[in-house]
């Protein structure tokens, strides 16, 4: 793997929560290289450190010990401005949809474009409608989240993460609220993006059906990366 082919690299990554006697180590010596365009699934029991690792790789937490390089930029000691700029190249899909209650489905998706400085209203609208149509929501464009089902909200959140063509998608149980047919559609969309645009996806999931579609499966237990299975071979 050349330097350009690596989207995410972690070296000797440790992380703790709390201070003093309450200080508890959550991650232990994580070493990881994730290739550009790959679809990675991260599994492990609750409390194994999956989400903590996701937030560290997504520059949502400060790196305390070790190193993380994301899209060629070292995150340790990165400034707030550098982190903010880098986050614009990522797509986050949260377990809870976290849609803005005052914005329609289309407007929520537009927020994913606006952050990149897409000001052309017509082109932005077209892109938002396109991604929502791909997700089967063409008839819900102007619905507020309160008028959407749980699955529909989650699909809008997926659309918001993908509309800006991110370089890396970080997803935490994104298909938990979806039926299998829709979940498969979302996973296929993420894989297509990986093949077409080189988008890297790192997804935390407990859904075994998704494991079959993963390029690689990482297993975390008690804060340690205990298994790294490459499925492409």
């Amino acid at each position: 793997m050349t330097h350009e082919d690596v989207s995410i690299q972690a070296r000797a990554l440790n992380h703790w929560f709390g201070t003093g006697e309450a200080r508890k180590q959550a991650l232990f010596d994580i070493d990881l290289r994730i290739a550009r365009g790959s679809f990675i699934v991260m599994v492990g029991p609750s409390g194994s450190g999956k989400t903590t690792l996701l937030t560290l790789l997504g520059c949502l937490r400060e790196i305390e010990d070790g190193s993380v390089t994301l899209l060629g930029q070292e995150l340790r000691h990165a400034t707030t401005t550098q982190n903010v700029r880098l986050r614009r190249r990522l797509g986050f899909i949260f377990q809870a949809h976290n849609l803005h209650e005052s914005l329609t489905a289309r407007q929520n998706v537009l927020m994913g474009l606006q952050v990149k400085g897409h000001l052309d209203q017509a082109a932005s609208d077209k892109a938002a409608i396109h991604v929502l149509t791909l997700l089967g929501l063409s008839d819900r464009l102007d619905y507020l989240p309160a008028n959407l089902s749980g699955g529909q909200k989650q699909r809008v959140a997926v659309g918001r993460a993908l509309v800006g063509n991110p370089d890396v998608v970080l997803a935490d149980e994104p298909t938990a609220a979806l039926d299998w047919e829709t979940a498969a559609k979302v996973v296929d969309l993420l894989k297509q993006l990986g093949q077409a645009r080189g988008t890297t996806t790192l997804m935390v999931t407990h859904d075994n059906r998704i494991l079959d579609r993963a390029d690689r499966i990482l297993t975390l237990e008690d804060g340690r990366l205990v298994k790294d299975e490459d499925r492409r071979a």
Partner: protein
Amino acid sequence: MSRLLTRLLGRLPIGWLQLVHQRGRFAAALSGVAFANVLVFVQLGLMSSMGVSTLRPYEFFQGDILISAADANTLVDGGNVARQWMLQALADPDVLDGMGLFVAMVPWDRGETDISLTTFGIDPFRADFIAPEIAANIDVLQVQDAAMLDRLARGLTREEAAAIRLQTPLAFETQGRTLTAYDTFAGGGGFGGDGYLLVSDQTFLSLFPSRSSGAPDHILLRLRAGAQPDAVADRLKGLIADPTLRIRSYSDAMAEELRFQQTQRPTGVIFGFGVLIGVLVGIVIVFQVLSADVADHLREYATFKAMGYGQGFFLGVVVEEAVILGVLGFIPGVAVGWAVLTLMAAVTTLPLFISFGMAVTVFLGTVFFSAVSGMIATRRLAAADPAALF
């Protein structure tokens, strides 16, 4: 509105959409801002009215320099001034003429209500010291016990005032004498009196026998054309050198009385505090609304933070909300403020109104202080931690 704001802001108008999403809270917030606006307008209206009514009597006369007693902070208070100083002042080559001005309050028993008129005693043969609109009929005062009555005085109906003419004068008793009003002029009630009365100096001295013709309350001087009142006043201070006198240009006397009324008199100070309280009420209301709004949307804001939105974006959203509240709250505020002041003006006959300048000042102040409140409210955004979303 959304489309307009999208064009103006170059982004989705999140602030506007958040506000209209919770219509009940939005309406309450607008009512709060409007209420603060009404408070400020009423207090400013009263302050402005005090200014207008304070300066009103100065407009009855024409002069360049006013000599008053040192303790005369207003036109109607302070000691007397010896007429000899007028003669002394006339020695200055730029002083053209002088007139003594007598001032006192006279009560007028109007049956159900007693009113108090600020009465000026003037020389009726010196029309050049009187404002043109009054001077035209000043001859009527040459008759003993004749008067010109303020047609806008409280307690005097407009019909009564309109009926006063040379042929149909209005006689009334005051200070044990019967005065006859042959004409009227426009004065108006103020904070110190219910209206004005003009009489000759001789009639004035009859009304107040204890007063002396040699000691008016003020001396009014007119200067030759082109003379500088401030420079002449300085010369007269050297010439007269009496520490019991205040020698000022007429415009300085007006400005000083206005300043005194607004900053030294309890009413002026109270009105000033009223404006301050109105502003504070507005700031607190807008802050509370925006602060609650930020708290309600912390999770969404944290999501936006995770997506790469910076502090400037959040500041923009909250300030957008603040400015919308300020602008839309101003509209009912100015309407209700105008209605309240109009009602108060009708009841009190004070010159209470919202001037264009006042409206612009309050509008800009509302928008500015709303924006400041919004900026303070964004401090709560620090609690929006994107890492907590996972």
